[in-house]
């Protein structure tokens, strides 16, 4: 489903001739329904890796193949379509629309495809999924009326509303307390199984990482499998 081949990323740096190398020769594969976690210290390039996989950033070298399509060969519109239909994002900050209700926030990704937005089953799916994450009582609430954990659950449901094949979560529990973090971790694992969505979680939290699946560690730009202690 997803394959990274020798992916590298360099950033230009004021005063530095060769620039700053964040990722080096990253190569791995992820099949449908698989889940992995990526850990590493701050500034190790975890988010950069996730952005490259999600088409939000482009690698300096190497290839990113999604269902055998090379993301480098896609233009911005195709990448946008890919993100909308095949990839779901969950960020550390939920980035919900403050002006919309919980239900509306979940439905936002469906607005890109006008046909889908008008279909009743999408609406029903949103209601069902929000019910599954325990937010049935909050469908018409605004984000400002929810706790941090609740907001992140809404963000997770929003990421999955279009039935993507791949869910990318960037520090999904980074801004949550322990209980909420636990709940989100449970949710991600459960959805990975029930929705058969491949999952890549970037996190500082080893406990979360270990619950997700195989843990890869990003250090000095290199991705290696983390050995269990």
């Amino acid at each position, binding site marked *: 489903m997803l394959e990274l081949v020798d992916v590298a990323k360099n950033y230009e740096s004021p005063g530095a001739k060769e620039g700053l190398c964040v990722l080096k020769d990253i190569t791995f594969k992820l099949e449908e329904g698989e889940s992995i976690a990526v850990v590493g210290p701050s500034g190790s390039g975890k988010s950069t890796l996730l952005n490259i996989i999600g088409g939000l950033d482009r690698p300096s070298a190497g290839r990113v193949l999604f269902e055998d399509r090379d993301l480098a060969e896609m233009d911005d519109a195709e990448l946008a379509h890919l993100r909308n*239909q095949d990839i779901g*994002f969950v960020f550390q900050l939920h*980035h919900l629309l403050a002006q919309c209700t919980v239900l509306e926030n979940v439905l936002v990704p*469906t607005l890109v495809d006008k046909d889908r937005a008008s279909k009743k089953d999408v*609406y029903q799916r949103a209601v069902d999924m929000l019910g599954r994450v325990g937010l049935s009582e909050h469908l018409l609430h605004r984000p400002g009326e929810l706790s941090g954990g609740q907001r992140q659950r809404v963000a997770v449901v929003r990421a999955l509303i279009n039935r993507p094949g791949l869910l990318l979560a960037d520090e999904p529990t980074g801004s949550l307390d322990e209980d909420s973090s636990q709940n989100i971790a449970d949710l991600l694992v459960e959805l990975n199984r029930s929705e058969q969505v491949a999952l890549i979680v970037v996190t500082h939290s080893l406990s979360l990482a270990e619950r997700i699946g195989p843990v890869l560690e990003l250090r000095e730009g290199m991705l290696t499998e983390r050995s269990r202690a």
Partner: protein
Amino acid sequence: MTLWRLIKRSLGFYWRTNLGVLLAVAVSTAVLTGALVVGDSVRHSLMKMVDARLGATQLALVSQNRFFQADLADELSDELKTPAAPVLQLRGLIANSDDTALANKVEVIGVDERFFEIGAQPGVEPFWRDWREGVVLNEPLAERLRVGPGDEVKLRIEKPGLMPREVPLTPDSDLSFFSRPIVRAVARESQFGRFSLQANQVAPLNVFVPIRWLQENLDQTGQANVILLTGGKTGELTADRANTAVRKRWRLADSGLEIRELTDQGVLEMRSRRIFIDRVLSGPAIKAGDGAVGILTYFVNELCVAGKTTPYSTVAAMTPGGKSLVPAEMQDNEILITQWLADDLGAKVGDTLELTYSVVGPMRKLEDRKNGFEVRAILDMNTPGLDRELMPEFPGLADVNNCRDWEPGIAVDLDKIQDEDEAYWDGYRGTPKAIVTLEAGRRMWANRYGDATAVRYPKGGVSAETVAAKLLGEIDPATVGLFFQPVRQRGTKAGGESAYFGWLFLGLSFFLIVAAVVLTGLLFVFGVEGRSEQVGMLLALGFSPGLVRRLLLVEGGLVALFGSIAGTAAALLYTKIMILVLSAVTTGSTTYFHAKPLTLIAGAFSAVVISLFAIWLTLRRQVSRTARELLAGVAQRQFVAAGLLSRGRVGLVVAALATAGALILPLLVGSEKSGAMAGAFFGAGALLLTAAIAFTGSLLKIIAGSWKRPMLSLAGLGLRNSTRRRGRSLAVVALLACGVFLVVAVGAFRHDPLEHAEKRDSGTGGFTLFGESAIGILHDLNSDEGRRKMLLDPNMLDGVEIVQLRVRDGDDASCFNLNRAQTPRLLGVRSAEMLSRGSFSFAATKVGAEAETAWDMLNDCEGEDIIPAVGDNATITWALGKSLGDDIEYSGEKGRKFKVRLVGMLENSILQGSLLIAEEQFVKRFPSEDGYRMLLIDAPQEKVDAVAAHLSERLTDFGLAVSSAKQRLAAFSQVENTYVSIFQILGGLGLVLGSIGLGLVVLRNMLERRNELAMLRAVGFNKAALKRMVFYEHSGLMLAGLACGVIAALTAVAPALKAPGAASHGGYLSLALTVAAIALSGVLWIWIATTAALSGKMLDALRSE
């Protein structure tokens, strides 16, 4: 969930930001749409005034000082199958019964019911039915005189003489008719009270009288000088068709000619009511019958042979040959004398007879001339053809019984008249005592009014009908002033081509609109920046940048739409205020509020489009960032990146180039004082403004790029911070700079008309008083004789110089007239007089003319039927929309078209509204315009008021109104200054918006950096220190803006500040105060925004971070 729902949610949720945007759009819409509606209102009012002053009139025949048979109107009505009305229109003056209110220049209009049926609206009270006596005043005149129906008024009407007043042998008395009629009614606009043939929106002062009453009292029975023609039901009557009808239906009497039978002499004789027969008529008249004899009879002062004289005699000149008294072979230096004269002088054949006669020059100056003739033969007193009818009906001669009652219009020394002269008068009356050839007579006595006094046809050779038919077939009636002009078309054109006030007010409101649009953009971008992470999220969720942009654009567009709706409502209020201002400027005119739906829609639409463009510009940049940047908040926090330093150099290059351009531009134009120079300096100022803004932009980049150097003070920190959002900072600097530039630069063009107004090269021409009369003054008011004849006190007028100008009425081409003047009033001026005085100064002249001798241009030959003319700058540029070298077409009194070419432009002057041509050309084109109706009076300062009162009193019968030249100039300048004031007020409002923008920038910057400020507090800075830092940062921007604007503006207005009448010291103070007020306003907004931003618990922000 739909995109529409998402937009609605955002509109409601971010209502504060949207309200700000909405208000900014409302302001720009109100000002933009309001300006357009002002334009519509003015144009609508002008068009409405065309209807009000012309009624259903399409065409008008206006012969002014020539009169024709009023019946011609009936003939034309019958021929063209359309209503026609004869009018006898003259100038006059009127006062109320106790002389407490007076109107010096009124139109006395003799009409009958046909006139009102053409012009009055259906259903109005028909006061003209059974109207035999009494006068009807129009509303403005009744208001001025404070009279109503039943009140008595004193009316003096110019009395047209049988002969033009400046014809030799015309008495200069009996110039007007006085009566004390009762006001019968007051005519409203709907009752055709506003009738006028001139395109001027200022209401005329009209006195309507029954035409018969006027004809009888002015000895003009059956005469008229105007015919109004409607276009019939279709309104498609053309001037050509009407003129064809005139050619078909006119009669000899309409040209002032009549044919009578002289039974005793056995001839038919053609004469003119005007005594002299026009050259255009006399030639064809002589050819109209075989054996016709052209005659020119004159009254001479003296006939002298060998020292013996006979005073005051008539002498005739005749075509030689045929039945003429002058034999065919008689030479032009020969003369026939009567037996009576031969006896009186003791003359015999072969003697030399010296003939002394007077001709009338300008200002009725008599010039005695002599001519010698050889006596060819002596005629018996009973010679056929030698009769008293040879003398025309000279007023003052033909109707008196003895010589001592003569008033021939020349000085008569009664002591010279002997008993034998009385006896001759008793026996032979005006029978000529001598005869010369017509050619000789014409050389002596032909004048601009004609070259014959009669044409005689031998009886039996031709009938009166044949002569008349021949003449009518040969002569174009236009040559005697009988031609129609398309007055409605001209009026519509004058209104339609008038300066579109929409553009003027758009120009005046330009900066306010720009400021509102910039504010719209700023507010919107602040709103979008606040939602940058949302935008990033939408991009991450698969929304394309285009879709996100469209979403925000629709959101902004809806806000703009609502703003424009609110703004359109405000525009109506704005228009009403501007109309009030306009009405105050153009006193006496009415501007009707008129808002065309299409204009409202167009204005609102334009404002929406402009606002959307501003929004699109800000969005383009915002949405072009990547989702990653937006989600990370990098867009808001990013400081200067590498490479900006080099880009700063681009701005420096632009600044250098613009500065160089600013220095070179005035040098290229040269040092001559001209409009081009002012333009060059304004261009240089604009270039300097560009340079200053570009330099500021570069400076911000350079400071931003110098991050390696440590900054060790609060001021330094503030300065560094100002480079953080260079776009915003530069927008504030540019907005303030442009505003200050415009307000200061335009403010410098405010004239103080009273500054140096006593100088001859100023707008007053050095004249202290300005006079206009209803009736032409015939005499030279500078000469002792002229003053004596006009009963003026020579002591009072000692040291007073008066320049007299001839006037041909036309459209008022001053800034008081909102119409586009088509044929402006013409003034006949003696250029040498102006030149010797050095009066007025020229703003521009045609190529090759020297400013010092520019008045001489009026005597240049520009080509056949092209007359050079000089006009006031405002008249040529604004009222006429012309420039030097352009031509304006006129029709002369005799229908001949000629062009007036603009060769010189006077600086702002009291002559605004008219064009000046050489008197010689004036007289040639308008020979019947008698006398001088405009006086420019140079009176010593100490007796200005006394002279004004004296002239007004003594020349009351001429309807002379004397006013201060300075006040006249001030009134003209007031219009210009009012527009400058409007610009400054609107520009000032724009600057207030600019200051609010500055405050918003401060507030926004502070809110964005709230955490940083909290950090500074955490490390020990107190609030006062932070306020100082913020103040340094933003006041630096404000000062940069003010400095850029002021420096550029002072450069731009350098020539204007040096010009006479430029802003005085008070003006400089006013400009300084304006700049200070802007600075104060800026400081206030910075303080308010800083206080608001730094209020509350700042450390909480840090904790939440």
